């Protein structure tokens, strides 16, 4: 029941908002209320799945593997909770008086639609259904990309559409191959029966899947749609995209990696793609002068850390990936919100034209400092524990070249954060016009995110333990398979 509510409520509210077109203040209240309900449902789900229980719902009375099943274990529950929380924060941050009433009115239903697609993707136990959810997410995101309606946002959206279309095509091809070999696309069923399939075809299908998911997660050779499009969005929406949308690709990789037992060569490819993304992404970020472009290249780098860790494939690696994903989903949105404030107060996007006297002083600087140092990995903030767990996983797996790549990437991350600091918080442009210093408060959403980063830093122990348990359960996979395949419903027992 919780699963159906989580998936359908945002879609329903989105439709209502679309048809009703209420004034921004009302649409804000309704979206916030929806997000609160989702958060409560997500907490219930987290509690229910905490002891390894897997919640399963089947549709239309079909028993798996014939029908579509939704299944939630602690891995799914964690991502669902993250999405529910981020939706609330983004709705809070998107203010009609700052971003324009039209933007707000257009963005709310789309953000809810996006949420519905993402939650569906996190919950579904069926690969074809996952494909449909990917498309739902992509279509909402394409529409969100058009919300600013500027020439730049139009031009930025085109490569996104084309590249993601091709990636979806690869995903669908892989689905065709898997269905041809096994006769179902239920993930739990594939986990049981894929081992009997011919090795060559299986390898091709899994490789196609990995490439498709890596494109959606924006790993290095496949990442160029992301820096083209994210900077064109209204900043809170970019925060939503960077915080959670790439995580759907990461989640899909986390799910299929242990269950469909990827070949060693594919695992190796993931580790290398992750390591190279981590380094090249941050180098590209370092060369940017536009804050939001810098941040979107950073996302490539951070996703690289996550994928490299999950490519290692043991429970330490998966736990590190999970913890890092959680940390990144809090830090990246807060940096986007800081960038938003900086750009508005300076009325420019270019770091070189920024002036520290316009930045509004103390609070924003503190907020940025906490988020930036967390991203760079300084203790006792969440990023330190995230990086520590990734490094430890790499060390235990004796992947020393990866370790070198990641350490270098961390160094450059710090450098790129210092670059923002130097330009936005400590310089005056050379022909300095007189500017009056006006202290300004920090947005409520940003305060909330910064508080969450601090909490994650100080509660790193319990959260990491939770991630480790979720990782072990995902790698073991037997509970998930048993729960899905034993779900009640009509239809014959599977014969072969």
């Amino acid at each position, binding site marked *: 029941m919780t699963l159906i509510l989580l998936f359908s409520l945002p879609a329903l509210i989105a439709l209502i908002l679309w048809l009703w077109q209420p004034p921004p203040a009302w649409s804000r209240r309704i979206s916030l209320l929806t997000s609160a309900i989702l958060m409560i449902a997500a907490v219930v789900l987290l509690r229910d799945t905490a002891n390894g229980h897997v919640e399963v719902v089947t549709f239309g009375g079909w028993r798996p593997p014939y029908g579509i099943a939704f299944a939630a274990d602690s891995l799914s529950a964690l991502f669902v909770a993250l999405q529910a929380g981020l939706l609330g924060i983004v709705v809070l941050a998107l203010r009609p008086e700052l*971003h*324009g*009433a*039209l*933007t*707000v009115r257009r963005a709310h239903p789309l953000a809810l639609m996006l949420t519905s697609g993402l939650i569906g993707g996190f919950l579904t136990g069926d690969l*074809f259904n996952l494909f*449909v959810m990917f*498309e739902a997410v992509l*279509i909402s995101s*394409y529409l969100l990309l*058009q*919300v*600013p*309606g*500027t*020439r*730049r946002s*139009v*031009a*930025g*959206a*085109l*490569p996104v*559409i*084309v590249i993601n*279309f*091709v990636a*979806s*095509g690869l995903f*669908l*091809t892989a*689905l*065709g*191959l898997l*269905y*041809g070999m096994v*006769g179902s696309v239920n993930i739990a069923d594939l986990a049981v029966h894929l081992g009997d399939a011919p090795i060559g075809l299986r390898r091709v299908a899994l490789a196609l899947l990995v490439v498709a998911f890596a494109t959606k997660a924006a790993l290095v050779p496949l990442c160029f749609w992301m820096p*083209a*499009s994210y900077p*064109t969005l*209204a900043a809170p929406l970019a925060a939503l995209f960077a915080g959670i949308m790439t995580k759907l690709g990461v989640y899909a990789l986390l799910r299929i990696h242990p269950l469909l037992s990827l070949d060693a060569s594919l695992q190796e490819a993931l580790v290398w793609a992750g390591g190279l993304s981590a380094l090249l992404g941050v180098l590209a970020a370092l060369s940017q*002068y*536009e804050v939001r*472009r810098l941040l979107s290249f950073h996302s490539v780098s951070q996703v690289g850390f996550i994928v490299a860790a999950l490519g290692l494939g043991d429970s330490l690696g998966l736990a590190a990936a999970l913890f890092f994903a959680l940390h990144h989903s809090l830090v990246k949105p807060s940096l986007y919100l800081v960038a938003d404030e900086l*750009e*508005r107060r300076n*009325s*420019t*996007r*270019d770091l070189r034209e920024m002036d520290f006297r316009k930045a509004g002083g103390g609070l924003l600087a503190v907020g940025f400092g906490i988020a930036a140092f967390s991203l760079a990995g300084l203790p006792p903030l969440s990023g330190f524990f995230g990086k520590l767990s990734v490094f430890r996983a790499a060390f235990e797996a004796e992947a020393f070249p990866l370790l070198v790549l990641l350490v270098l990437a961390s160094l450059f991350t710090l450098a790129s954060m210092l670059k923002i600091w130097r330009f936005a918080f400590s310089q005056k442009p050379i022909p300095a016009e007189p500017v009056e210093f006006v202290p300004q408060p920090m947005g409520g959403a940003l305060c909330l995110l910064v508080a969450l980063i601090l909490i994650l830093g100080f509660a790193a122990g319990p959260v990491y333990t939770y991630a480790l348990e979720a990782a072990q359960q995902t790698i073991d996979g037997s509970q998930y398979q048993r729960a899905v395949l034993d779900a009640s419903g009509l239809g014959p027992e599977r014969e072969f």
Partner: protein
Amino acid sequence: MLPVVTMAVFMLMTVGSYLLMHRSLLRVALGLGCLGHGINLIVLSAGRWGQLAPLVAADMQATDVTDPVPQAFVLTAIVITMALTLYLLAVAVAQTRRGGQAELVAAPESDHPLDAESLAAEFAGRPQERA
């Protein structure tokens, strides 16, 4: 049946990939269409090119029947492809209305500073109206 389908997939994929390499958005849209249909044929092949429609009668052998599930998959995929192609073309039109060509171009960066008017419009979150 299978050799014919294989040839068709091969040709659709080739033409699709070739068209995708162009800048012109019309060609890209056509290329995506070709690619999509090639992939749809692959998925359909997963359900066997049987002789009989999947309507089960008492005296039928299950092996003669085409599997209906991939057909359902493909139906979904065709709808999604159509929606995305339409959307791509709509964005192309939007780009020409904003004074550009219907081509894939690099998004303007802030390194080439945006003019004050469009920047103000962007910060106000108001879509730019241009004749």
